[in-house]
């Protein structure tokens, strides 16, 4: 049997995040192709409680050490390295997310292994693992081979289906004690986003605004449309940074991931950080003056035109249709 593939389960506030399941799914396929067992590492004081969700794996390693709670990347990487040594793992998968940022690079440095970042696809070819990574915001793809078949792979959110990583089986769990150095970066407190009046992750319809909305006043127009459609407004980072909408409305890598029935992307170019947050929406309608905006590659419907011209007309028509 080939060396195990080890997935670092990602957690946030007591929950296993979606990326973990995406990685499990990806890992399962890879493991099958490589003839390797699939292991998962679960670190921290909540670890034991969450282990049962990870049934897709062949084994769950639990490191029940509170020092690993919200530990910095360096500490986690050191723990993973120790685990790798113990389990002889050849490939480590982790999430290309804010939560896990840096762990992969540090682990790669500690273990003397290469890291493949932004991985969207992986396959086994002639005994070697080949990953497909996206670069330059998705404009270029790169097929990368892991020399010696060993390395650290950072998995891009949304690239692999999360369902493939879930099942109703309970995995075998093994507790492990690892030496953990006192971290020089200590967690103090969470800074909650201001409780927005609206939870955009629960909306059926979202009207998203980007730079193309041009001014704060025009956000009103989007609000009107959202209201008429019974939904809410949200925004990409530049609009939030300007302060035109509160943090609770931010959609994207550092914001929320949403999957409404309809997502209207108005004046949004479709940069990967935003796309990450909306890619699972059922129907994406994009309006942008630039025909080359990346949003049009992923949206279901599109209009190349001026948002400010279209908005009021659309709002009227929706009102009319609703009667």
């Amino acid at each position, binding site marked *: 049997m080939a060396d195990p593939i080890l997935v670092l389960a990602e957690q946030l506030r007591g929950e296993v995040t979606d990326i973990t399941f995406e990685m499990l799914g990806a890992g399962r396929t890879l493991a099958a192709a490589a003839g390797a067992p699939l292991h998962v590492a679960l670190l921290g004081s909540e670890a034991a409680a969450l282990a049962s969700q990870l049934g897709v794996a062949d084994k769950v390693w639990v490191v029940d050490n509170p020092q690993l709670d919200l530990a910095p990347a360096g500490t986690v990487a050191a723990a993973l390295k120790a685990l790798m040594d113990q389990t002889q793992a050849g490939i480590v998968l982790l999430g290309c997310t804010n939560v896990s940022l840096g762990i992969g690079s540090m682990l790669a440095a500690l273990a003397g292994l290469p890291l493949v970042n932004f991985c969207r696809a992986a396959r086994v070819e002639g005994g070697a693992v080949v990953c497909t990574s996206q670069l330059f915001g998705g404009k270029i793809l790169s097929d990368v081979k892991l020399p010696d078949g060993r390395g650290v792979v950072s998995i891009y959110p949304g690239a692999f289906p999360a369902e493939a990583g879930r099942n109703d089986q309970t995995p075998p769990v093994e507790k492990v004690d690892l030496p953990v150095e006192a971290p020089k970066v200590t967690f103090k407190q969470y800074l909650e986003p201001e409780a927005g009046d609206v939870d955009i992750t629960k909306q059926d319809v979202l009207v998203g605004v980007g730079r193309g909305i*041009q*001014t*704060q*006043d025009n956000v009103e127009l989007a609000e009107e449309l959202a209201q008429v459609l019974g939904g809410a407004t949200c925004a990409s980072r530049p609009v939030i940074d*300007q302060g035109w909408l509160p943090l609770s409305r931010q959609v994207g890598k550092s914001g929320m991931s949403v999957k409404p029935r309809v997502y209207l992307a108005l004046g949004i170019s479709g940069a990967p950080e935003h796309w990450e947050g909306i890619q699972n929406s059922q129907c994406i309608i994009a309006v942008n*003056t630039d025909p080359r905006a990346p949003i049009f590659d992923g949206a279901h419907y599109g209009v190349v035109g001026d948002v400010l*011209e279209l908005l009021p007309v659309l709002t009227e028509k929706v009102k009319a249709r609703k009667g």
Partner: protein
Amino acid sequence: MDPVKITLFGLPGVALLWMLTIAAFGIFGHRAWQLIGLLRQGRYEDRFDQVARRMVHAAKHVLLQPRIFNERSIGLPHFLIFWGFVVYVICFNWGLLRGLFPFLPVPYPEEVKAANLFLELFSVLVLISLGVAVVRRLFFPPKYLHLSRDANVILGLIGLLMLSMLFGSAFHIVSEGGRTSAWMPFGSLLSRAFAGLSPETAHSLAAGMWWLHTMLVLWFLVYLPYSKHLHLLASPFNVYFSQSATRPVGDLGVAGAKEDLSAGAARWQELTWKQLLSGFSCAECGRCDRSCPATASGSPLQPQQIVHKIKEHMVQVGLKPKNGDGAPKLIGDVITEREIWACTTCMACMDCCAVWNEQVPLIVALRRHLVTEGRVERTVQDMLGNLQRYGNSFGKSDRMRAKWTQTSGLKIKDARKEPVEHLWLVGDYASYDPRCEDITKKTAKVFAQAGLDFGLLYEAERNAGNDVRRVGEEGLFEMLRDKNLMALGKAKFKSILTTDPHTYHTLKNEYPWNGNRPDVRHYTEVLDQLVAAGKLPLKKKLAGRVTYHDPCYLGRYNGIYDAPRRVLQALGLELVEMPRCRQHSYCCGAGGGRIWMEDTEKVEERPAENRIREAVALEGVRTFVVACPKDIAMFRDAVKTTGHEDRLVVKDLAELVAEAME
């Protein structure tokens, strides 16, 4: 009768007169010297060249003052008040000298029949004018008229001077036995009312009038440099030193500067002496405020206030002993950033200023300082960054500049590779803005069909820098200019043709051609010439009533009003002028980098919307014709936001020509 041959407070009249005169001139002189001292602290600029041209300019605009007549109701009255004042000053000085030197074998002006007649006639005319002014002020004040103390003082003073003149004449007649004379018509009339006075009393009263008159004038002399009436002395110099006497006033380059002015002015001493002179020359008439589109749309900017505040600040801070840190800051305390950024650089203020003040360069100097400090709003920063990096304000690759040519259906020459007759610098908006792309293609087709030999610089073209300069980023302007000049230097062409008036203006007036300036033309001029030469293959006449909007940088800045109108005429269209046309054209609001700025102000009404309403009021006019790509963007927007899409359509002149050529 010699009014100085009296004794007052034990002093002979002559001595008293001398004391008063010396005191008045002394105080006046001291103050004038202080103010000149302030001017000398400003930065140097060379306005001392071309004396002859300057004298002609000054003579015309001080003596004949045609600009004063641009506001009908006050034009003639001011002209008369001005000349009345001039004549009186002459007569006063004559009288004063005679009083100071009684041994001079010279009569008083009142004793010379012709002079006295002159004086009386003028007194009455001036009094009538004053009457008009007072009645206007009290009963029909235009909205904009602010009743200031200085203004009321001068009106009162002039009134008293004229009345003392007339009464003096009347008393003089009575003192001489009531003999009236045709040389003293009004004095004679008035003397009837005092016929009952004894000659001695009349004599005293006549002398009294003379002294009253003299002391009022001396008092006024002292008051003058502390009031807006300083404009009487300062404005003739201001007109003499004005830039338009010798070169285009829209050229922001300063001649003969001894220091680098690109960092702008953070303190009043960093403005040039000529800029500081504006404050003393301003008569506070408010014409600039009334013509300013920023003021009209409710923004805090008022050109007169900018000039006025700088003056007040300079006088306050400059004449006090060391202020230390407590001194107010020119930018921030005295003038706010919002005011500085609100200007569209349309030059309406400068065009109507009766004393030829130059408000726009003043504002740009302040902007330059804000840019130096990085105190620029986010959107403008992004634009400047784009311009620096990609040579255009759209943030698109410089390689995309000529992408429109690919779908134009034409093979357009590359002026970098082959010589062309007309080098067409298309400009950012016409090249990159999807709203204007169509028009640019039509323009190209028109040129092609007219058989014009033209070409582009393709990717080598950069934004000409006009708006960059007006935003205050002088360093970036120089960089763009140098890059363009380099590209132009390598190309072979006979003349340059531009779509955008902003490009036109700066290429023509602000690029250092070193005597080798090529022929720079706006496309409307080229179309006009083609029409005149019969080279434009117009296939049909267009019908309908249209109105034409004079772009600021084509009209006011460069005097091109007729060429586009002739083209419209040649197309068969009926041109109906808007009330504010030609040099009174109302800015669309995009200039001066405003198109890059966010509307954070709660504006009452945007300039473009105001203009559209003006056009819509013209009966039967369905088309609003423009000759600038930014106007297309601004006015098409305004038509929508004012809800007039079914009433008015905005078209570029080139589009109409293309239509007529189909």
